[in-house]
């Protein structure tokens, strides 16, 4: 089952690359650098999916005390951090030729960086507790706080940004209008979601095996 998912993922990723480089047109204003968006946006969407699952797993564990929920939270948290890191790195690389600097405190990058820190802390907490029961419990509480905080972070950063700099008209935040770009984005998003599901499946299996040893 996971095997099939794996192959499907490869298919999706190839399709995504083809769409991003072959099918999608060269963007008028930014040029080819804009193609990084096909990596950057699906990454952040996948990260959000991961953290929603951390929330679900956390609540599920506290409600039922079944280890499966904790395994979900742990796996999703780890993979979420991976994709968040990717989002930040790709966003930074995209920003350098576009805005001239490796880092700007724009709303999305800042929010994503905060998100990254929250869940790295989550993983850190997990790594410091040996007792599986306590680990699951504490991680669940932090997982809930972290997830519920996401919209609060989003708004605070957005308003903070509005204070200090007018929002750029150009730049990664603008939603694509060209349908070809939209389609390429969609294909890549599906591919990333498949990749996430595949990673999640394998990571949860590892957690299950570890519990048996």
């Amino acid at each position: 089952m996971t095997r099939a998912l794996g192959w499907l993922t490869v298919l999706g990723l190839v399709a995504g690359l083809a769409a991003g480089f072959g099918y999608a047109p060269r963007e008028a204003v930014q040029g080819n650098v804009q193609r990084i968006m096909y990596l950057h946006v699906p990454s952040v969407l996948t990260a959000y999916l991961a953290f929603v699952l951390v929330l679900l797993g956390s609540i599920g564990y506290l409600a039922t005390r079944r280890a499966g929920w904790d395994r979900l939270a742990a796996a999703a948290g780890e993979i979420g951090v991976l994709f968040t890191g990717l989002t930040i790195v790709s966003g930074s690389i995209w920003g350098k030729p576009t805005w001239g600097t490796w880092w700007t405190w724009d709303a999305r990058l800042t929010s994503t960086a905060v998100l990254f820190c929250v869940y790295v802390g989550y993983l850190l907490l997990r790594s410091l507790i040996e007792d599986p029961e306590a680990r699951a419990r504490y991680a669940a509480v932090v997982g809930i706080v972290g997830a519920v905080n996401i919209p609060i972070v989003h708004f605070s950063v957005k308003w903070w940004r509005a204070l200090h700099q007018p929002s750029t008209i150009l730049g990664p935040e603008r939603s694509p209008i060209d349908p070809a770009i939209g389609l390429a984005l969609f294909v890549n998003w599906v591919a990333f979601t498949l990749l996430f599901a595949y990673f999640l499946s394998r990571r949860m299996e590892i957690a299950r095996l570890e519990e048996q040893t």
Partner: protein
Amino acid sequence: MPSNWGYVFAAYGIAAVALLSYWRHLARRTRALTRPRPAAKTRAA
């Protein structure tokens, strides 16, 4: 507008390395846990 392909490849390249490394990491851990003999001491999840 300069071509900037270097940046594009850098971004995709880093992503590929990161994702492949993670995949290999998962594969290695799975192998270690499914070996017939008792596996080496594993880290907490």
